[in-house]
Structures are given as structure tokens and as C-alpha cells.
């Protein structure tokens, strides 16, 4: 591609973005001659340049659009929404052709006849109404609207059109600087009428990126030099000859850093450019009247941050228009102006930029969210009872949540605010909301100005140093580890069942020991006090216990090597002034990790007392081995490895069909195959198959789940965010740092054989159903256990936590046996069984413990607490056998304490 064409593409893309904004403005203010003149000029320029470059198709469309605009300008035609729509359609076509140009370097083929006819009709004063209806399919048909960033070669020649270049302000010495990057309103003045000499020059983004990297290195080197000089001075006791030039170097470096940072700054208005058009189209689509007000568009922030918040912002504005604002008649009935208003406001506050997205709609309906939360199983009735409306409204940030009762084309697909929140947190930002019924909702986003250099607190745990981004640090607290003298008034670290907490200003702060969390060997210290770094993660606070706290330092965040990316505890690494490499902690990752380990750490203390050697194992306590695979899509899916009997790789010719169902001969039998993606790809040479088998009773039954590819086996914390609306999926969990669908094996097993769970080989059915109570906090295991046990002929009741179980006892509900998890938040398994054994109607019931780790110490502790038996999680057969045995023993006078299965 030649330079001329590259320049044309850049310029045209900017003009197109401006045109979108201007046209919407024109529609609202049809008499605004300046806007009309601007639009005409821009279209005219595009047309003129295409003629010059020999782009006939583009010229044709632009020419037809210009004709219409010319007549509008000459007041021969009124500005109507129909005219604006047909012009916008023409702009969309131009955009498509330009995109095609950027990728292929030549004009792509296509038919513009209908569009041009519609434009001509409009210019002749005929209403282009029928045309506008048929325009939509034509617009999307001929061109693949592929993302513009394709082959690197093309990118090198012509930067991708959407804002590929930032304009750089001239050095301040020469002239009073114009705003660093040309604002949309100023751009036309600067470009065609640059008689006074160029005020801005175009610089490729990669040049600026390289510059930034170099400056970052320079800053680090300067820090190193300063440290060396200080050391030398301290040694010699006198300033060395380097002191003065070093100071100067230091200043210049700081100025340079600031200057380079400035070149990266762009007004946030750039991220808003597409919004007026979007809101206009949205208003048309959903039949509402919407006004978009944008304030603080000139507020500048780092372009890297800008790129990252563009999509979340767009999504939120769309959400506000679609869900937030009511329809005109409802608004009128409520005594509000018919036109709903979405306000975007941006301003600086400290080292942050605050962006508010406000609507004056109906507000978030707390009661509907509440109902949704309950139905989705995101929280229990009891938990919700303790929450205020604001806390309930925040559930919209949870994965798999969508308030829209009906899914509209615009939004409401269930991936929404949680994605927004994740993306904002990824760049170290926070998001909060405030909603008043009938008055509207305001979202407040707080993000750092830049990501390149951050201030970090350096701490030490178990002899290793780590950096914590200052942005998330709320305060530092010195706490006692043991009760000391009377006059020491500092707060003390207390333990609730082994979990450390801190009483901080009438509030209980959850604590996590950094050394334990990172599985570092504990240093033998007789420290009686600890430093607690209080960090803010979303709306919650968390205290991180460290051994020492050093200084804060400006650090340049560098991504960790790809082979370390799976460790979610770190957000990057950096080099300190003394030249040493240090890992940067990710408070979000730590919070996620502790959410899972908090319950596990309860019995960790006992374990540590029992054997010192287990200390390391404690770190990976509540992890579950998951098999990751792909089927029908790129996104990973997972199933607990413990459920998979074998993995097979079947050649195509081994797959046969029996009564239309795919089967394979497997170990002398026919095994039904179920393709997870719906159909077996006939083109694939080989198929990866997960074999699930059930060998209880006399016969072995197997089923093969056909997937596209087996990706991996990972050990991770299994944290399922439920989304029960898709059959075959238990929900979504973050596994190995990626959102992963966890499949519901029960669903697929029944697809292979309707009676998979119904065959019952224990004779309990005849003796009347025996009643079981399952106490299990993990949604996933509960969902797995209940159908399994129900299939085996038991009548199953499930409780989510110990208190729920105890309430059932108080309500007089009776069971034949109880199966309980060990690690649960609140009252854990051993505590529950102690309460059961203490008194009441359940005191003699067999209680079976489910655990992910059955070491002799655990079993002994379990026996002491009163458990009848211990069974490892996922051991379906062992659990069924144990239940049979326990129930049989319970039928006899003394309830037996058989620990046969665990041993």
C-alpha cells in the first residue's frame, strides 16, 4: 500500500468518526448551518480524494451522499430523520469500503445500486422510506466487516484506522500549546486551513510505545544510579563528583518521563465518539427518546487505558438506554420529561480519572434483582435478609446475571456488567453504582490515569520481597499476634476457628498471611507483632499479613513470562532501584484465592500442629483437578478429573452408528457416544473421547463424551458461578485464569442412556425410601451429589450450610443418615457433627464426612468429632457403599464406627 493511500485511510476514518457525531447533532438542531457546512465539507473531501486516488466505488457512494447534502445545505430539502438515516447508511457503506481498502489495499467488489438509488430518491425530494427499510440487509451483506488489524505486514504499512495515530503537541516553548490531541471540533480548522504551519505532526503509536519503554528503562537505570551514589557517599562520608550531574540527570529523566507520558494522553472524548450515533440508533430500535449529554470530554488519560475502557463504556451506555430508561409513555405517566437522559461525566481526582454514567430512568429494581439472585442461587434468603438495597443492586456485577426479563437484541444476554467489572478491575479500577427508585442509576468508574508506571508498596514475607500496587492499599495497621502487655493498645490478630481476623474500628477484617498464601516456608521468627496491609478489592477489604513493610517505589509494571501466567496471585513483575527483580501482587487474585481457602484454613491449623511437613500441602488444599477440553467453540470447558474414567482417542472408522446413535466398540462392548457439540464432525480424522464409566453392581456401563480437543489437566480452586439456564452446564468457573464452562455430567449421562441414574442395584426401594440429608456448601458438589444419591434410591434433602441443616433439626425433620462436607464457611463439618451428637433427635444418626483429603490425621480428628465414616469426594461408589453399610449398622442397636473406606 502506498503512503498516499495510507494517509487517505487515516484521514477518512477521522472524518467518518466526526461525521457520525455531526449528523446526530444536525438531526437534533436542523437549523445549525455550521454543522451542516462541516458535514458537507467532510463528505466533499472524501469524494474529492477518492476521485483523485481512483476509487470509483467509494466516489460513487460519496457523490450520491454529497448530492443529498448539497440540497439540504441549499435549503431545498428539510433535515428529516429519514434523510439523516439514509446519509448514515451511506457513511456505513463508505466505512465498509474503507475497511476493505485497509485490509486488501484495493476496493472490494459490491453492489451499491440500492443505496445510491435511495440517496438519489432522497435528493429528488422523494421520501426514501422504503429504501431505508431495505437498506439494512444490503449494508451488512457485501462486506465481511473483519477487524481491521489483520496481517502484521499491513499494519506496519498502514496503522489500523480507528484512531491509529495521536497528534503530538509541539514543544511548549514555541507557542501556546493547543490541546495535545486535536479535539473533534478543532480538527477541521487545523487540517484544511493550516496556513500557519503545522501545529501537530502524526506519529505512529508504535514509535510512542517504544519511546515509553525506553523511558521506563531510563527511569529504572536512574534509580539504580542514585542508589549506587548514595551508597558510595555513605561509605566515603563525602559527596562524590557524580552528585551534581546525577541530580541533573535525575531531573531530566523525570521531565522526559512526564513528557513522554503526555504524548500518550488522549482526551476521553475519543472513547465517546461513537456513542452519539449508538444512542441515536438505539433510541430508534427500542422506540425511546434518548438524549446523550457528555461532559468533560477533554479529560485526558493514557491511551492504553482509553482503549481498555472503550468497550465497557459502550456497553454501559447501551445498558442505560436499553434497561435504565423507560419508554416515553411510562415516563410521561411518572411525571418526567418524555426524553430520557444519559449523562457521561469525566473528571480527574487525584491520580485517577472518574467516569460517571448516569441515567434518569427508573432505577434498579431491588426486588426483582432479589428474586433473580434467589432463583439463580447466587445467595440465600438469609444472606439477602441482611443486605440493604445497594448491596442487592450490586449483584448485577455478578457473572451470569441479567435483569432484563426479556432478552433484547441490544443487551440482556447475561454477559454484561460482570464483564464490565472484570475489565475495569483488570486495569486496577473500581466500579460502583448508586440507584434511586424512579430517579435513575449512576455508575461510577474510577481508573488510574496510566498503567505504565505505578506506585507500589514494597513488603516482605518469609524473607522474600513483593510489591503491592499503592492504588489498592487503603491503610497499614500494626497488629499484635498475641496478647501482650496492658499498655499495648494496637489491635490483636484473633482467630475464628483458625482463620485470622482483625478487629479494626468496630469491623471484622478478614486476614490472609502472605507467607502461607504463597506457600513460602515460614521463617523462624519470634515476632510478636505483624504488619497488616489493608487492601480494597471491589467493595470488600482484606488484610494481608506481612513480616515487614519497606518504602513505596515507582515501578514499571512488566508482564510476567508466559510460563508464569497461570499464577493468578501476581499481576506482573518489575525491577527495583537496587536492580533486583520483584513480583507484583494482584490483590484481586489474592482475594479470589482466599475466598476459596478461607474455609479450608479452618482445619489447617490442626493439621499443622499434627505434622510440620504438611505445611506446604496446605496451600493447595481446596484445589480440584479439572480436565479442560474444547467442544463446539474455542472457549474451554471443564469437568472434574475424578469423574472421568479414561481418555480415548478414537479413529474415525471406529465410530459406528446403531439406530442413528453413534457408538463404538469398547472393551468388547458397545459404548454409546455423545457429542458435546451436538454432532460428530464427519471430517475429523480422530476424536477425543472422555469415557465415563460406572462399574458398580454386576455390569460395567460406559459412555463416551466426544469433544473436539483435550486441552489440559489443571489443579485449581473450583468456584462455580451458577448459571442454571443452559442444560448440560453446571455453570462457569475461572479455571487457570480463564472463564470456563463446567459441564454437568449427569445431563450427558442421561442423554446416553435414559436410565443411567434410575437403575438401582441396592434393594432399598422395596424397604421404603431412606432419607438423606446432604450438607454441602459448594453448589457444584451439591448438584453432583443430589442426583447421584437420588438415583441410588434415596430421598435426598440438601442444605447449603450447617445452620440450614440445624434449622431442619429444630423443625423436627428426621433423616436416616447425614452426609456432610468438612470444609464449609461458618460452622464446618466437625463442628456440625459435634452439635448433632450433643443432643437432639439426630444424635444417633450415621454421619458421613465428605472430604477432598483423607489423611490418617483427618480421619482420627473426624472420628473424635463424631463422624461415622469418611469418604473422599467424587468417590461415588465408596459413598454408596458406605451409606449402605452405615444404614445397615444403624439399624442394629449400636451405631458402628466403621472407618473402613477411608483406610
Amino acid at each position, binding site marked *: 500500500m502506498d503512503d498516499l493511500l495510507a494517509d487517505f485511510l487515516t484521514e477518512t476514518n477521522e472524518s467518518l468518526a466526526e461525521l457520525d457525531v455531526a449528523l446526530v447533532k444536525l438531526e437534533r438542531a436542523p437549523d445549525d448551518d455550521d454543522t451542516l457546512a462541516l458535514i458537507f465539507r467532510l463528505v466533499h473531501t472524501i469524494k474529492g480524494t477518492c476521485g483523485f486516488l481512483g476509487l470509483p466505488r467509494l466516489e460513487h457512494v460519496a457523490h450520491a451522499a454529497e448530492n443529498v447534502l448539497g440540497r439540504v445545505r441549499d435549503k431545498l430539502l428539510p433535515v428529516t430523520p429519514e434523510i439523516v438515516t439514509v446519509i448514515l447508511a451511506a457513511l456505513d457503506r463508505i466505512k465498509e469500503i474503507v475497511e476493505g481498502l485497509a485490509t486488501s489495499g484495493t476496493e472490494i467488489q459490491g453492489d451499491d445500486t440500492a443505496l445510491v438509488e435511495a440517496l438519489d430518491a432522497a435528493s429528488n425530494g422523494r421520501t426514501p422510506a422504503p429504501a431505508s427499510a431495505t437498506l439494512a440487509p444490503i449494508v451488512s451483506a457485501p462486506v465481511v466487516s473483519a477487524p481491521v488489524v489483520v496481517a502484521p505486514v499491513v499494519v506496519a504499512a498502514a496503522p489500523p484506522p480507528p484512531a491509529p495515530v495521536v497528534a503530538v503537541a509541539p514543544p511548549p516553548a514555541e507557542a501556546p500549546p493547543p490541546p495535545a490531541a486535536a479535539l473533534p471540533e478543532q480538527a477541521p480548522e487545523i487540517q484544511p486551513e493550516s496556513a500557519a504551519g503545522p501545529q501537530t505532526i502524526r506519529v505512529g503509536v508504535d514509535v510512542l510505545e517504544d519511546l515509553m519503554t525506553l523511558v521506563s528503562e531510563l527511569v529504572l537505570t536512574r534509580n539504580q544510579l542514585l542508589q549506587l551514589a548514595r551508597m558510595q557517599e555513605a561509605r566515603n562520608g563525602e559527596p562524590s563528583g557524580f552528585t551534581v550531574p546525577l541530580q541533573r540527570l535525575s531531573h531530566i529523566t523525570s521531565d522526559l518521563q512526564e513528557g513522554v507520558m503526555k504524548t500518550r494522553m488522549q482526551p476521553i472524548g475519543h472513547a465517546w465518539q461513537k456513542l452519539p450515533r449508538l444512542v441515536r440508533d438505539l433510541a430508534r430500535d427500542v422506540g425511546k427518546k434518548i438524549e446523550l449529554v457528555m461532559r468533560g470530554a477533554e479529560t485526558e488519560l493514557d491511551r492504553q487505558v482509553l482503549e481498555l475502557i472503550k468497550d465497557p463504556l459502550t456497553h454501559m451506555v447501551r445498558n442505560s438506554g436499553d434497561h435504565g430508561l423507560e419508554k416515553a409513555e411510562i415516563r410521561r405517566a411518572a411525571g418526567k420529561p418524555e426524553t430520557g437522559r444519559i449523562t457521561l461525566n469525566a473528571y480527574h481526582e487525584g491520580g485517577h480519572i472518574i467516569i460517571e454514567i448516569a441515567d434518569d430512568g427508573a432505577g434498579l429494581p431491588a426486588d426483582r434483582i432479589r428474586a433473580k439472585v434467589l432463583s439463580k442461587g447466587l445467595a440465600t434468603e438469609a444472606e439477602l435478609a441482611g443486605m440493604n438495597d445497594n448491596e442487592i443492586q450490586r449483584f448485577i456485577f455478578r457473572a451470569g446475571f441479567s435483569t432484563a426479563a426479556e432478552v433484547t437484541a441490544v443487551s440482556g444476554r447475561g454477559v454484561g456488567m460482570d464483564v464490565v467489572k472484570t475489565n475495569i478491575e483488570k486495569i486496577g479500577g473500581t466500579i460502583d453504582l448508586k440507584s434511586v427508585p424512579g430517579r435513575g442509576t449512576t455508575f461510577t468508574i474510577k481508573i488510574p490515569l496510566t498503567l505504565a508506571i505505578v506506585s507500589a508498596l514494597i513488603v516482605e514475607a518469609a524473607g522474600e520481597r513483593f510489591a503491592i500496587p499503592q492504588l489498592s492499599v487503603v491503610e497499614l495497621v500494626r497488629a499484635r499476634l498475641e496478647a501482650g502487655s496492658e499498655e499495648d493498645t494496637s489491635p490483636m490478630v484473633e482467630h475464628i476457628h483458625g482463620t485470622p481476623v482483625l478487629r479494626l474500628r468496630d469491623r471484622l477484617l478478614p486476614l490472609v498471611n502472605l507467607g502461607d498464601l504463597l506457600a513460602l516456608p515460614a521463617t523462624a521468627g519470634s515476632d510478636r507483632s505483624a504488619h497488616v496491609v489493608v487492601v480494597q478489592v471491589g467493595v470488600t477489604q482484606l488484610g494481608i499479613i506481612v513480616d515487614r513493610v519497606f518504602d513505596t517505589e515507582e515501578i514499571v509494571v512488566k508482564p510476567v513470562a508466559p510460563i508464569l501466567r497461570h*499464577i493468578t496471585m501476581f499481576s506482573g513483575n518489575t525491577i527495583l532501584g537496587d536492580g533486583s527483580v520483584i513480583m507484583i501482587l494482584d490483590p484481586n487474585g489474592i482475594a479470589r484465592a482466599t475466598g476459596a481457602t478461607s474455609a479450608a484454613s479452618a482445619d489447617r491449623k490442626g493439621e499443622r500442629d499434627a505434622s510440620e511437613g504438611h505445611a506446604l500441602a496446605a496451600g493447595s488444599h481446596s484445589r480440584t483437578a479439572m480436565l479442560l477440553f474444547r467442544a463446539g467453540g474455542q472457549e474451554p470447558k471443564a469437568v472434574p478429573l475424578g469423574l472421568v474414567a479414561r481418555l480415548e482417542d478414537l479413529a474415525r472408522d471406529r465410530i459406528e452408528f446403531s439406530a442413528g446413535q453413534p457408538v463404538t466398540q469398547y472393551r468388547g462392548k458397545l459404548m454409546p457416544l455423545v457429542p458435546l457439540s451436538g454432532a460428530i464432525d464427519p471430517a475429523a480424522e480422530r476424536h477425543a473421547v472422555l469415557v465415563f464409566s460406572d462399574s458398580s453392581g454386576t455390569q460395567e456401563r460406559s459412555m463416551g463424551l466426544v469433544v473436539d480437543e483435550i486441552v489440559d489437566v489443571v489443579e485449581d480452586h473450583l468456584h462455580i458461578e451458577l448459571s442454571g439456564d443452559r442444560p448440560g452446564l453446571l455453570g462457569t468457573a475461572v479455571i487457570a485464569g480463564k472463564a470456563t464452562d463446567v459441564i454437568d455430567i449427569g445431563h450427558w449421562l442421561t442423554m446416553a442412556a435414559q436410565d443411567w441414574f434410575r437403575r438401582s442395584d441396592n434393594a432399598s426401594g422395596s424397604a421404603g425410601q431412606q432419607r438423606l440429608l446432604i450438607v454441602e456448601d459448594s453448589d457444584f458438589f451439591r448438584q453432583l451429589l443430589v442426583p447421584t444419591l437420588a438415583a441410588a434410591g434415596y430421598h435426598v434433602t440438601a442444605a447449603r450450610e450447617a445452620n440450614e441443616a440445624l434449622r431442619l433439626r429444630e423443625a423436627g425433620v428426621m433423616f436416616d443418615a447425614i452426609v456432610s462436607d468438612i470444609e464449609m464457611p461458618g460452622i464446618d463439618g466437625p463442628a456440625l457433627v459435634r452439635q448433632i451428637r450433643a443432643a437432639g433427635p439426630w444424635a444417633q444418626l450415621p454421619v458421613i464426612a465428605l472430604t477432598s483429603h483423607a489423611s490418617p490425621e483427618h480421619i482420627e480428628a473426624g472420628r473424635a468429632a463424631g463422624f461415622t465414616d469418611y469418604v473422599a469426594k467424587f468417590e461415588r461408589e465408596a459413598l454408596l457403599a458406605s451409606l449402605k453399610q452405615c444404614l445397615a449398622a444403624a439399624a442394629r442397636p449400636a451405631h458402628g464406627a466403621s472407618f473402613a473406606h477411608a483406610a
Partner: protein
Amino acid sequence: MTTTLLERPSLSGPAEAGDGDATFVTLTVADQLCGIPVLGVRDVLGEQTITRIPLASPEIAGSLNLRGRIVTAIDLRRRLSLPAPPEGAERMSVVVELAGELYALLVDQVSEVMTLQTNSFEQNPPTLPPQWSEFSAGIYRLQGRLLVVLDVGRLLSIGPLLRGRA
């Protein structure tokens, strides 16, 4: 500090000594002579300060600072399931580049750059212990000793995403 033996070998260097010949940086791990294709080598370092990385795979010794770049260090002995080096033994590293990232392979000793003839190259003998055959791209017969050509790509396939497959 840093001992730089070679800096970004140019294409006109010994790498193109003869047709079909190949040039290697030779090193020893637990007395076994190994070679890494010289074009993939960016640096050779002496003993370094290495920051440990908690929760990382045991083969990952940590990260080190190479002139302002952070380099992940892989302990070759642990990667090859070999016994740990004697206490206090000084170790060297060979810095290699893979997909734009630098990695330092911690070895016992880096010796010299050798150009070897293709006719002395052999495929892995089938009896090679699995920890070697997994990472060996073949063997060169030298006078009196054998040189194992290390497959850097496979050596660096560490992490949960690739371990389950093996």
C-alpha cells in the same frame, strides 16, 4: 556480575561455517555435555542473583535482571530430573529467546562454541532415558564424548497448560 561471552551473534558468524554444519554453544549439566543452537542464544551469564517465584513450577528457579529485562530462569538439572548440584556450586546460565521472551537456562558450566558436522549427527537412541529423550533433538558423536542437542522449545514448555499432556 554479567560475563558476556557473545552478544547477538550475527548471521555471518561461525553459524554458517559450512554447508549442513551447525554451530552450538556447549554446556554441561551433571557431567553431560549438551549443545544449544548458537542462533537461539542471546547471552551467557555467570552466577546471578535470582528472585524466587512462589507457586511456580519447581523447574522455574526464579527471575533475574538482565540489563533491565526480566528473564525467567529455568533450572536445567531440575527440568531434566537430575540431582541438585553440590551445595555452593557456582552456576552459569545460557540466555535463550523464545517467542520474544528471554529465558535463562541454569547449567553447571558453559564451555565453548563448536561447529559440528552433520555426518556425526544421530537420532536419539531408543534406549535414552525418557527425561533426556523428551528434550533431546539428537546426539553428536564427538571425539571421546557425546553431545546432546537440547530442544529449547520443549525445555520451556513448562506450566500447567502443557504438563497434563505428557
